[in-house]
């Protein structure tokens, strides 16, 4: 420490109160940043607590609009909110939701993967940007616009398809319409994940395959795709999650059947999300609260799907990059 040898001391020039003030502001802002972080993290927990709480309420004793039977809700095959007393059975809705999402991914998955392969490995460089933009635009289109398109175009297509088989539809509203719509909507999700996965495949793997005498196409299909498969399947799961949760567009073409499950592709159907949106008028009462119960079921399905990404990554493996 310097001694007071001279008349001038720099310490006298330092205003301690200003420093203290600065340090206090520093502390205050750091606390604000921390609070913002915690607040953001808290949201997901609040969602579980509040939506869960409100959704369970109808099944608890003492529920003001008449206690519902949880067993009947989980196994029931009829959803009649127009009856008195109303019947709420969600089992067939879950089945229909799973069927339509499954059909959508069966259609969309191969097309998405092939498109991604085309964009990354096969297309000439100049076309690459164009096709990437196409996928990005498809991802950017809002879901209501997809819904309008489905209600105007896909319904007509499905209707004429049904007539071809000698069947009738309810103006094109059907399970098939929902599946085609969802297939289109999850296409950009799966494709962009697949593009990332394929682009990350180690170049040396390909060179190795080529050196062993495989053709370029063989290498693309056998080596590149299997090396990228964990990323590709993660994309599929992400797409499935989107298909389960898609609401407005689906509700425009589902038709909302009252019983089920619907096995006929040309018959109307009912998904969890279309149930939550149909006939939404009051903001209280049993018919409103039961939508939260449906919301819990949806959340559980989406959660299981998301957690299975981790499982799939572990069991499928693929080749680690770099």
């Amino acid at each position, binding site marked *: 420490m310097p001694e007071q040898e001279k008349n001038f001391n720099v310490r006298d020039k330092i205003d301690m109160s200003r420093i203290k003030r600065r340090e206090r502001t*520093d502390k205050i802002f750091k606390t604000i*940043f921390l609070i913002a972080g915690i607040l953001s993290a808290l949201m997901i927990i609040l969602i579980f607590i509040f939506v869960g709480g409100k959704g369970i309420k109808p099944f608890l004793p003492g529920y003001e609009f008449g206690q519902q039977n949880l067993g009947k809700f989980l196994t029931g095959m009829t959803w009649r909110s127009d009856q008195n007393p109303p019947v709420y059975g969600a089992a067939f809705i879950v089945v229909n939701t799973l069927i339509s999402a499954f059909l959508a991914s069966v259609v969309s998955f191969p*097309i998405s993967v092939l498109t991604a392969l085309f964009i990354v490995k096969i297309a000439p460089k100049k076309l690459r940007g164009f096709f990437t933009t196409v996928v990005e635009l498809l991802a*950017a289109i809002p879901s*209501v616009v997809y819904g309008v398109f489905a*209600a105007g175009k896909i319904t007509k297509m499905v209707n004429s398809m049904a007539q071809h088989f000698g069947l009738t539809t309810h103006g094109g509203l059907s399970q098939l319409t929902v599946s085609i719509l969802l297939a289109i909507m999850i296409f950009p999700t799966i494709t962009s994940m697949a593009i990332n996965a394929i682009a990350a495949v180690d170049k040396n793997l390909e060179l190795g395959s080529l050196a062993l005498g495989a053709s370029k196409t063989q290498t693309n299909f056998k080596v590149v795709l299997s090396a990228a498969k964990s990323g590709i399947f993660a994309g599929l799961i992400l797409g499935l999650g989107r298909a389960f949760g898609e609401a*407005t567009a689906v509700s425009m073409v589902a038709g909302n059947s009252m019983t089920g499950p619907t096995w006929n592709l040309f018959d109307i159907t009912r998904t969890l999300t279309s149930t939550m949106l149909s006939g939404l008028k009051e903001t209280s009462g049993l018919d409103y609260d039961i939508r939260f119960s449906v919301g819990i079921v949806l959340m559980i399905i989406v*959660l299981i799907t998301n957690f299975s990404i981790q499982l799939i990554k572990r069991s499928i493996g693929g080749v680690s990059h770099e």
Partner: protein
Amino acid sequence: MSKHEAFQERISKNRGMTAKRRSIDGVRNFFTYLSAALAVFVLGSIFVFVFQRGAKTLSWDLITEDFHTVKYMVNFTEQEAGDFAVPDDLKEGEYFSTKYGFGVMEGTDAAKDTVILLTRKAEDSPLHSGVNAVAGDTKDKPQDVPTHVNVVKIAYKNQEGETKSAGQVRHHTPQEFVETLDQESTGIVSMNYQSLGGGIRGSIRATLMLIGLTLLISLPIGIFAAIYLHEIAPKNGFTNFIRTSIEMLNGVPSIVFGLMGMAIFFPITAAFGATTPNILLGAITMAVVLLPVTIRQTEEALITVPDKLRMGSLSLGATQTQTIFKVVLPNALPGILTSILLSVSRIIGESAALIYTMGTFVVDNPHITGRATTLAVQIWSVMSGEQPNFELATAISILVLIIVLVLNVSIKLITRQLNKKWKE
């Protein structure tokens, strides 16, 4: 790279493939072309469909018009018939009253009913002399009849001095309407007209209000949280927990956010006097929806700011807060701008969460604590009625598509610019 590719090229060209191999490869490649072409086809058909169906309906009037029709009634202070010259630029199907100096033609209103549309008024037409005939404060105040309204009824005096009416109430076509007036009347007494409705002015206003309010809430929280995570947070389990929790928000379906809004935040807006779903509630909900996006984008922007800038500032004696606000954030501004554009694009496209938190009833004069619809929700609203209104829905879709696409392209350009800046 080019060396790599040249090498690859040589390998696959010199390899003698069997005819069978070649045909299998050809088929496989063909399917990839087909898939990519299908994607282009789907995108194309969506655009063609939306633009074809909606282009006719999309007009300036649609943007400025209210959704609900409003009825008006005026009495005329100058009732005498005049003598007006037929204008030269009369369109086909447009009829001009030479006695009263106005033109009408056939049109349609919001409910797609055929109406008599007032298209033009001569300068000294008696239509300018209207006074409000509806009881209330504004009774007998001058009220000029605007053009582009539906003429429901004009009451006129005939040669015998009796009061008769002409117009939609007597199921007149525009031609019959003008002929009746010009041949039978000696003067006009009063007029009933109504606005056409079916417009989107209210939804545009509500969308803008929602965007403003949402950003006001989501930006500070999102940016501060990102600052905490990137600049301050220690690397430990707690920070990881915060990160995972925020990431989990990404997987929540948007309709569940709607439920969340009603379950958690409705009491907050009720404190501001709201009794129904409202714009403020929609904004708080959207802010939560956008949190993960805002945080991730801001963090990515913070990552691009070189550490030497922070160290320089700190070594000059600035506190960490000063460094963040005066050095780091200004340098991360383009990235934050990207997150704003992305947020706006998401808000405009969002529907499911807002159906729950803002309602589906189209309101012409939205208020922060009242029901309203954004453009996207209005599309859903007009589509989910008994008679889906494709014309209006596709017309709004064109607007929404154009806005969203322009935003996405600008995000791409800004990101590219940003990457260039720090690479140099």
